[in-house]
């Protein structure tokens, strides 16, 4: 193997570092609002690429082709739920932005703390959400390190690759905060879109002689039709799992997404970016086609999620393989950055600050310090050990994210929701999700987080109706901020 793919991949890292450092230009990161939410300044195009690239992780370049390789069309549930996340962003995002703008919220947990007048609930939400966000960041780091390790022909050990990737991100995240995430994601988002289509079209032409994807699927229709319908080639994606996985994914309001929404320069900018966001997910189609091609080209593959990279390294021109490496690395980093940033931010702002009474400036300094601690003390060591149960931890984390839904129902839909009701629903739902993830996995082929919600929501309503609501002044204040035209 030549060094060209590795050099292209490393070249991407250098460009990303330069862009991330440049993002600070003309802005002081001493202010919490600047480092956390870019001074609420992002326009709709930047937001489109920020949210789009942030939601397209290494999964798109590794996992999605892998799912196509092993299951077939079930992989398209990702396209559906990402489109629904855009609907959620359109509907809820402007309300979140108005709350942040009116009351100075910079994190999801600070909005929860304010709505329920409970520092404990805010801190609990921040800490337990961290299980999911950090697991996600570790998974992306492992993906990024894997790319560098493979493309260097093993010369760069996984441990060194982990430190290299985290080191690059640490430099520009500390220096430029959310502005770095916005600008690097815009670059990464554009790069990924071009690379995915280039690779997909090239692979289709190389293996079928046609530039049209239809040539790939006609053979499946004749010889392996089980790849073209649910439950898929391995029989694992039933209608019930398809449906509940989409619902749970759609209502899992992950903290970095709130930070992205609050970085908008106006509610309108956010709404415009959400409107066109589904169009970004055309990026998934060509990579899925690559996975389908792998079924015939690499029938003996031991790890399905390496299908695109294996295809690149064995049959693509070196420059295209290098671009795929850069695109995959961009996908991993663009998703990892927001999760690391939001975790450090919420630990400082929603756990330490309420206990110590730190000023906003001191909180910004603490968040930057915690970012280094989280990367060096948690993400790097865990990523280097490549734990086999990390996906399990991530599933529990995402299941928990769905259990916070009562807090949002109270914020956006039902003023009667009480603090005790949210605690009760959240904790009961979490226990069920944990049990149905670890002990009895997804009973009746229904997502564990969905089972959690089936207990969570009735408990939340029942307890809320039997405990005092939050002060009317708080509820009025929230309604005024979210719906200024209706309240005036």
């Amino acid at each position, binding site marked *: 193997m030549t060094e060209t793919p590795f050099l292209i991949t490393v070249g991407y890292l250098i460009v990303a570092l330069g862009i991330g450092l440049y993002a600070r230009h003309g802005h002081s990161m001493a202010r919490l609002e600047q480092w956390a939410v870019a001074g609420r300044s992002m326009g709709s195009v930047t937001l489109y690429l920020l949210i789009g690239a942030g939601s397209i992780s290494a999964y798109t370049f590794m996992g999605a082709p892998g799912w196509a390789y092993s299951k*077939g*069309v079930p992989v*398209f*549930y990702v*396209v*559906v739920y990402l*489109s*629904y996340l*855009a*609907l959620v962003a*359109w*509907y809820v995002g*402007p309300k979140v932005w*108005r709350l942040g703008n009116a009351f100075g919220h910079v994190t999801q947990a600070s909005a929860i703390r304010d709505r329920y007048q409970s520092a404990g609930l805010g801190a609990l939400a921040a800490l337990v959400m961290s299980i999911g966000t950090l697991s996600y960041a570790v998974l992306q780091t492992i993906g990024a390190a894997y790319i560098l390790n493979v493309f260097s022909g093993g010369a760069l050990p996984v441990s060194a690759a982990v430190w290299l990737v985290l080191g690059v991100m640490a430099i520009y995240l500390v220096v430029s905060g959310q502005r770095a995430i916005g600008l690097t994601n815009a670059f990464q988002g554009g790069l990924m879109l071009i690379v995915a289509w280039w690779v997909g079209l090239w692979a289709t032409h190389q293996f079928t002689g046609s530039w*049209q*994807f*239809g*040539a790939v*699927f*006609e053979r*499946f*229709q004749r010889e392996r*039709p*089980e790849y*073209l*319908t*649910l439950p898929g080639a391995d029989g694992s994606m039933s*209608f*019930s799992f*398809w*449906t509940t996985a*989409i619902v749970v994914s*759609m209502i899992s309001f992950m903290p970095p997404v709130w930070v992205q929404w609050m970085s908008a320069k*106006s*509610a*309108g*900018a956010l*709404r*415009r970016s*959400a*409107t*066109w966001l*589904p*169009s970004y*997910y*055309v990026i998934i*189609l060509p990579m*899925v086609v690559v996975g389908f091609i792998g079924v015939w080209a690499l029938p003996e593959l031991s790890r399905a999620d390496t299908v695109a990279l294996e295809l690149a390294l064995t049959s693509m021109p070196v420059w295209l393989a290098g671009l795929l490496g850069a695109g995959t690395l961009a996908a991993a980093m663009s998703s990892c950055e927001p999760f690391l940033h939001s975790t450090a931010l919420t630990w400082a702002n929603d756990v330490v600050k309420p206990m110590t009474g730190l000023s906003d400036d001191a909180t910004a300094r603490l968040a930057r310090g915690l970012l280094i601690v989280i990367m060096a003390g948690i993400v790097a060591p865990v990523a280097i050990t490549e734990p086999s149960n990390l996906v399990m931890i991530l599933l529990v984390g995402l299941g928990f994210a769905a259990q916070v839904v009562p807090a949002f129902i109270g914020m*956006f*839909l*039902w*003023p*009667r929701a009480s603090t005790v009701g949210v605690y009760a629903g959240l904790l009961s739902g979490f226990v069920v999700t944990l049990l149905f993830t670890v002990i009895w996995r997804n009973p009746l082929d229904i997502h564990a987080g969905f089972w959690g919600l089936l207990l969570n929501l009735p408990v939340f309503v029942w307890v809320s109706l039997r405990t005092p*609501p939050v002060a*009317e002044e708080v*509820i*009025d204040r929230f*309604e005024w901020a979210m719906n200024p*035209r*209706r309240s005036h």
Partner: protein
Amino acid sequence: MKKPLALMRPSTRGGWLCVGLFLLVIVSGLWPVVAWVNRPVLVAGLPLLAVWAYVIVGASTLAMVIGNRICGRGDDD
């Protein structure tokens, strides 16, 4: 209690239309609707389920475009 603490609902016909449109799009991607497109046939060279997923992409965008016109005014505060 001075103020009812009932569910917050859309206050205009346009608001209800937006909610209805969004729910229609969401239902279109779930069972039982998805069972109707779960056939091993190709449309424009792609599996029907893949085409349906991208129909939902288009429908989501269209629902939001309509939403911007009927209930998204005044967002540039």
